[in-house]
């Protein structure tokens, strides 16, 4: 009888916590829901970088030419607006073309994975995500080694 009570308690407590968590979850937007919609790139800066001599790259805005060089081999190259759709689709809009990419949130929703044509795969650290702003980080070793920070605003 004692064993039965112990087992019941051992099962019921986690079950209760899980149910409570699931119920509470319904009242809040999930990171996927927050991500959906159209986002505009506002700025590119170096979060951390190897500074060269007296040049301090940290928190300095990255110039258009440098941005072009950094993102040259990336899926997000020249993208200005990012439109996340519910069917895991992401439309990267530039002035000249649109690129359809697949997206997924991984880990504890801290990684944004982009896949293009099932061939190219890129990962970005989703550092901040709220109803108005999104911040992505990615590591760069092109030109200057460091962590690039992209800030987006929801349109």
């Amino acid at each position, binding site marked *: 009888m004692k*064993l039965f009570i*112990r087992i019941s308690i*051992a099962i019921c407590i*986690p079950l209760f*916590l*899980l149910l409570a*968590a699931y119920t*509470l*979850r319904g009242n*809040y*937007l*999930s*990171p*996927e829901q927050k991500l959906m919609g159209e986002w505009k790139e506002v700025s590119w800066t170096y979060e951390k970088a190897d500074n060269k001599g007296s040049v301090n790259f940290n928190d300095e805005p990255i110039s258009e030419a440098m941005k072009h060089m950094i993102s040259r081999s990336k899926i997000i190259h020249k993208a200005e607006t990012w439109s996340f759709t519910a069917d*895991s689709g992401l439309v990267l809009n530039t002035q000249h073309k649109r690129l359809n990419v697949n997206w*997924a*949130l*991984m*880990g*504890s*929703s*801290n*990684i944004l*994975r982009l896949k293009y044509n099932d061939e190219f795969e890129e*990962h970005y650290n989703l550092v901040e995500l709220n109803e108005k702003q999104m911040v992505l980080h990615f590591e760069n070793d092109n030109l200057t080694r460091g962590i690039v920070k992209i800030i987006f605003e929801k349109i």
Partner: protein
Amino acid sequence: MIKERNRLNDKIKFGMMYAGTAGMVNVSSLVLFFSFTSNVTGHYAILANEIANGNLFKILIAFLWILLYFAGSFFSHFLIRSGASSNTYLTHAVPMFVEIICLVSVGLYGHYLYAETLIETELLVAALLFAMGLQNGLTASITSFSLKTTHLTGLTTDLAIHLSMLYKKNIRNKEAIRSKFKLMLSIAVGYLIGGAIAGKIVHYAHFMVFIYIAVAMVGLMIYDWSRTFSIKEMVRRERAAQKELFEKTANAELLGKKYAG
């Protein structure tokens, strides 16, 4: 002395194999889900950070993951303590069997059904954390809390402490310290080898890597069974030999008394 050495060899073999599977699970989940599943230190850090940020959604997920790891260890130890007096092999086998079920479920779901949604990722990571909690609870319980095979923070600390102890001449010759050092080193190496193997396989096998790990766990179960069986057989033979010797001595004494009479 030979018995002690055999026991140490057994511990090293089991430790390496358990740690190897944990390393495989951790590296595979890191590649496939971008999340660690064989330890919860990072998840505690995430939980603390999200509490500070007031992000309820992420708090719940981090809490769920820690809870599942906790539940795995609890379940494992509970089973071992409940059945400690009955069948030793069975009490070890049940947590391992549940762990295998978790690994196979994650592998099959990932291979055939996974649509890469966040909720699926979170639940699959939760299942793996539960499996690793089970394994850690099992190894900790059967070694009187001296060994943990799924995470290496404590082990690396102990390894460093033991290495520093071995620098002292008077401690260096102590067999217990040397044995513990060998055991911990083998666990770290086992974890590393398992992780490296999984890191290579996962790019080809993707989610099926969890099926391979489950197969390795079945092998481990069979090995555990064979060792338990051989130890039982050894004990039985030893007892039979002792009984035979006792009977012979008693007979000789009886004969001696008869002739003396």
